[in-house]
């Protein structure tokens, strides 16, 4: 064999092949299967295969009462369980024309922000782990534990809380709640800059993030992206601002927008949102109004005939709960517009043209929770 012969690169040919990413891939955080059409190491096309945790929730709730409906929604996006509950509770209250007390509104808003903080912390931890920085996981889980304890103390559960009920919340706040929240705010303000020092400025991290996975603002809207994914592209999509619910109209906070559209922009949006959550908590913790924590409702709730839609902002984006009622004790049809499902559509666009390792980084900034996609 003539070893001196030089092969020019245009003589080399590549062949397209298919690669399964998942369903048991550590970076998919659950059972998401992406069928990748590859050319060498470049992703040419992505096709999702969902349904590994499809539980038929939309069918299931057609045989359940409105009170039972709330408990199912915890299992959609289990990291935003409080917001999911709230969306259903608000939709039911809208239908029954119940005006809840200020205390309920403030409790719900505070719980929302605690949940958002916990969710973003978990995201930060596993995102670091996805791209090879294992320490972040330990830091994030250490601090998330404080929030879980606050939740446990008041609601009796750490993750799937089912704290909202139609017309209020299930229990009153624990007496230690304000004190603990203040402690948490103080602690988080100390550790968030530490997070930045640990990961945000890291050169390896920056190379994985900067300029990778660009999503243009037009595409973000057209592909249905919401939440931090859309705001990373500079699209105003915060439901807390666009259609305020609970106590969001009485607190001052900024809608965090980044113009980059890349991984780093989405990362920065979530990091800054944690500070915004702390701001909201700080404004409310000393101003929890007195009043009832439950409004009187009938034991068996029957919604009037009609269609009711409620939008809320979960940690992942816009959640819509669409209830069609025919006047009976069970809903006629319930549709959950889950943020992850539409964000996945944007991933199919963004992921094309990048290497597999980049796709892992892009997916981590999209922050999927698979039960939310599958429902």
């Amino acid at each position, binding site marked *: 064999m003539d070893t001196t012969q030089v092969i020019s690169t245009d003589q080399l040919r590549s062949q397209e092949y298919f690669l399964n990413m998942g369903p048991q891939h550590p970076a998919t955080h659950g059972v998401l299967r992406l069928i990748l059409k590859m050319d060498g190491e470049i992703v040419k096309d992505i096709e999702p295969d969902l349904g590994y945790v*499809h539980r038929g929730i939309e*069918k299931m709730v057609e045989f359940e009462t409105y009170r039972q409906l709330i408990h199912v929604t915890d299992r959609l996006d289990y990291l935003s369980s409080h917001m999911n509950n709230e969306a259903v509770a608000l939709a039911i209250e809208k239908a029954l024309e119940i005006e809840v007390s200020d205390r309920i509104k403030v409790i719900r808003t505070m719980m929302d922000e605690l949940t958002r903080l916990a969710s973003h912390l978990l995201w930060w931890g596993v995102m670091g782990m996805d791209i090879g920085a294992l320490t972040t996981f330990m830091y994030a889980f250490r601090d998330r534990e404080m929030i879980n304890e606050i939740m446990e103390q008041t609601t009796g559960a750490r993750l799937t809380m089912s704290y909202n009920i139609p017309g209020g919340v299930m229990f009153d706040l624990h007496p230690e709640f304000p004190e603990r929240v203040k402690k948490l705010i103080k602690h988080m303000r100390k550790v968030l800059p530490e997070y930045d020092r640990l990961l945000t400025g890291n050169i390896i991290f920056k190379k994985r993030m900067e300029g990778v996975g660009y999503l243009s603002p037009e595409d973000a809207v*057209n592909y249905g992206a919401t939440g931090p994914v859309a705001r990373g592209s500079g*699209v105003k999509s915060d439901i807390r601002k666009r259609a305020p619910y609970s106590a969001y109209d009485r607190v001052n906070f900024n809608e965090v927008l980044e113009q980059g559209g890349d991984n780093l922009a989405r990362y920065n949006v979530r990091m800054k949102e944690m500070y915004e959550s702390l701001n909201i908590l700080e404004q409310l913790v000393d101003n929890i109004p007195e009043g009832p924590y439950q409004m009187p409702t009938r034991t068996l709730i029957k919604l009037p*005939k009609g269609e009711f*839609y409620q939008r809320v902002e979960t940690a992942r984006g816009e959640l*819509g709960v*669409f209830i069609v009622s025919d006047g009976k004790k069970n809903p006629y049809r319930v549709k959950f*517009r889950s943020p992850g499902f*539409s964000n996945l559509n944007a991933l199919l666009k963004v992921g094309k043209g990048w290497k597999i390792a980049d796709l892992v980084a892009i997916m981590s900034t999209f922050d999927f929770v698979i039960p939310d996609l599958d429902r």
Partner: protein
Amino acid sequence: MTNEELKAYLQTWDDKLEFIEPVPDDTSLITVLDDLSGTWLNVEVPLSHLKGFMRQLHADKETAFDYLFNMTGMDWGKELGVIYHLESKRHGHILVVRARTADRENPVFPTMEDIWNTAHLHEREIFDLLGIRFEGHSNLKRIFLTPDFKGYPLRKDYEDDYMILRK
């Protein structure tokens, strides 16, 4: 635009939209549904005019509905249909559009994928669970359920004695 302005504006479209087949004289393009509770304007459009109507909603500068935030497949017993929730990011108004078909054996809707790409996955979901086919969709197949699954679970006449507990 407020709901009233939006309603008045859409009602002028009856004779303005020439790019689709003409609307019969005795019917109007949109039917406003007032009996549904809710704060948004609900309209119904005949299925034959749906695609042209939606394309105009997206393209028209006054309406500019650039964001399809929800798509719901419905089974109303005798009829199947789809409810579209549209929002304009520029103007901030919201419109709910629906269309229905009485054909339960072979329901066909036009795809909205080329107008709002977010419909891509939503249409696959509706096809999977309600069996509505979307003409022109790039990759219409089951998304949650296995390819050999029989029937469409979200239909009201779907029977499964083993999995569904009726109370």
